[in-house]
């Protein structure tokens, strides 16, 4: 079975007509998302997240590569039949009320939508009270909620949300998270774009990190976090040849940490990069056998945040085993 969303080596270079500066927004980016996932695409501003979503929705033509939704190539408008989309910085015609907007825009994507359906949608995002208010009077957070209702108007299988919690207050954010979770229980597939980690951390089953148009890493959240477990070790000096030998087990599991050392101290600081506790103990056994005396071991509670920052700092190179 093929994935619901499939992107193969997508590249996009924006050419600006007058300034002769090309922007490589996406560089050979491949990805696949299966039915039922909440997938998060994470990256700093300008990483190319929006560009990716726009290519997949047929708004932007890729310079090279291809993508498909449910087996239909994205250059065909039919690929968007089962798709909902909340663009970043969307602007609805502001002379319409929320209800009118959902009726007209709903018909563009789904044919008919009854008043009952529209009320249910508005209720779902907590906007029913404002159904007959012109959109021009809405706050940013209300716009976002209305936009999410709009993305659900055609009862889509696959929903793209580009920075959905942008400008939403903390309570609203939690409500949006809960909404996403309930959508997932209905079997919907959700693709989230965000530059804010905590937004993805709490809801996504899988994430990819994008930086300067390149995929940095990708995987299940727990796997990504585990891959990154780092122990800060303070011990007597580890002989060079032992450090080399340990590198054979796994690429450089033990590294001198960047922390400055007092010259009079007999202790040194190291970082041990391992994938499991068992592996940590194997490394410790070897150190002890060589009479390295351990002063302390601290498990870095490595959050996705650190993973993200490291990934972005290292600018595209593999982040595994990178010491700071």
């Amino acid at each position, binding site marked *: 079975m093929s994935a619901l969303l499939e992107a193969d080596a997508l590249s996009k270079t*924006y050419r600006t007509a007058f300034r002769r500066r090309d922007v490589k927004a996406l560089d050979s980016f491949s990805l696949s998302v299966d039915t039922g996932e909440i997938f998060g695409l994470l990256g700093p501003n300008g990483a190319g997240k929006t560009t990716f979503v*726009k290519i997949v*929705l*047929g*708004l*932007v*033509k890729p310079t090279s590569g291809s993508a498909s939704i449910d087996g239909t190539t994205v250059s065909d*408008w*039919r*690929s*968007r*039949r089962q*798709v909902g*989309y909340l*663009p970043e*910085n*969307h*602007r*609805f*015609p502001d*002379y*319409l009320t929320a209800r009118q907007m959902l009726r*007209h*825009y709903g*018909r*563009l*994507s789904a*044919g008919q939508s009854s008043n009952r359906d529209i009320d249910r949608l508005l209720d779902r995002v907590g906007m029913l009270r404002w159904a007959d208010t012109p959109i021009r009077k809405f706050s940013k957070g209300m716009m976002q909620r209305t936009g999410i209702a*709009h993305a659900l108007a*055609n009862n889509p299988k696959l929903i793209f949300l580009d920075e959905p919690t942008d400008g939403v207050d903390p309570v609203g954010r939690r409500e949006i998270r809960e909404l996403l979770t309930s959508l997932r229980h209905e079997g919907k597939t959700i693709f989230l774009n965000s530059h804010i980690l905590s937004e993805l951390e709490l809801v996504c089953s899988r994430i990819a990190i994008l930086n300067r148009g390149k995929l940095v890493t990708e995987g299940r959240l727990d796997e990504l976090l585990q891959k990154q477990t780092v122990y800060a070790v303070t011990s007597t000096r580890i002989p060079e040849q032992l450090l080399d030998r340990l590198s054979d087990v796994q690429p450089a599991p033990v590294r001198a940490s960047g922390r400055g050392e007092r010259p009079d101290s007999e202790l040194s600081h190291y970082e041990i990069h391992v994938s499991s506790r068992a592996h940590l103990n194997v490394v410790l056994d070897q150190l002890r056998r060589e009479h390295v005396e351990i002063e302390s071991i601290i498990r870095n509670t490595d959050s996705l945040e650190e993973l993200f920052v490291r990934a972005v700092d290292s600018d595209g190179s593999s982040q595994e085993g990178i010491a700071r």
Partner: protein
Amino acid sequence: MSAAFEMMKLTFLELWSRWVTVGLFVASSLVWILLSFTLNLDIVEGSLTGVRILGQDAGVPRERVETASGEAVQQFVTLNMFVSQIQSFVAGVAYWAAAFLGLFAAAPLLPGMLSRGQSDLLFSKPVPRLALLGGHLLGVFLVVLTLATYLYGMIWLVMILKTDLVAGRMYGSILVVVVMFMAMYSVVALLSVTTESSALSLIVTYGLIIASVSFLFRDTLELQINRPWRGVYVGLYHVLPNFAETTKIAAGFAGEDPIGSWYPLISTCLFALVMYVAAAWRLSVRDL
């Protein structure tokens, strides 16, 4: 198909949410209301014996005609001629009002559709891009058709009620006005799709309209232009739209005058066709 229809409705609604469109409607109402209240015609046995404007006697309109013997004499115009003159005049004025104000009202719409924030919403729908463009164009044309029909139709009715005379072919004028508007809007469409600037598209379209006024005096101008440039000028006459010359056709329909030449209308339509094809192509290949 239903998506294009929905886009048409959205465009129609958006135009009516603008004050220029409502203003055009109000101005049209003023024109026919004024005409019906201020103009009093004395008609005796089907011929015009007096015209009063706001109660003041304006005299009976006369025209110079040459008799068979070559003498020039003043003669009363027939009622039919009088009515068709008024209708021609209104048709001509309305043509230009529709052109300038209609374009002014509609020009920001396409750049708006293509602007960041709206283009993402519209063009991510499961609808071909050209269906959205088509729906938009139909919506704009429908508003112009509504306004033209309203103004011309009311004037026509007022004149019929006042004189019992059915003069002119108003449907013809309405058609010409709408078709000419379509032609003018083709420039707006192409430039909007390429540059997203309503100011630029308006300036260029108004520029073309002004250039077309010079084509009214083509016969005299042509002789004053030096050789190599004369060819360029004649070439431009055929290539560029002939908005001004077409006024004569609109006025001709409104009155009883025969229509001299269809060429300006036809060549302008061809120009518009090329513009629309280019706009459609540009929209289907560009990034949004």
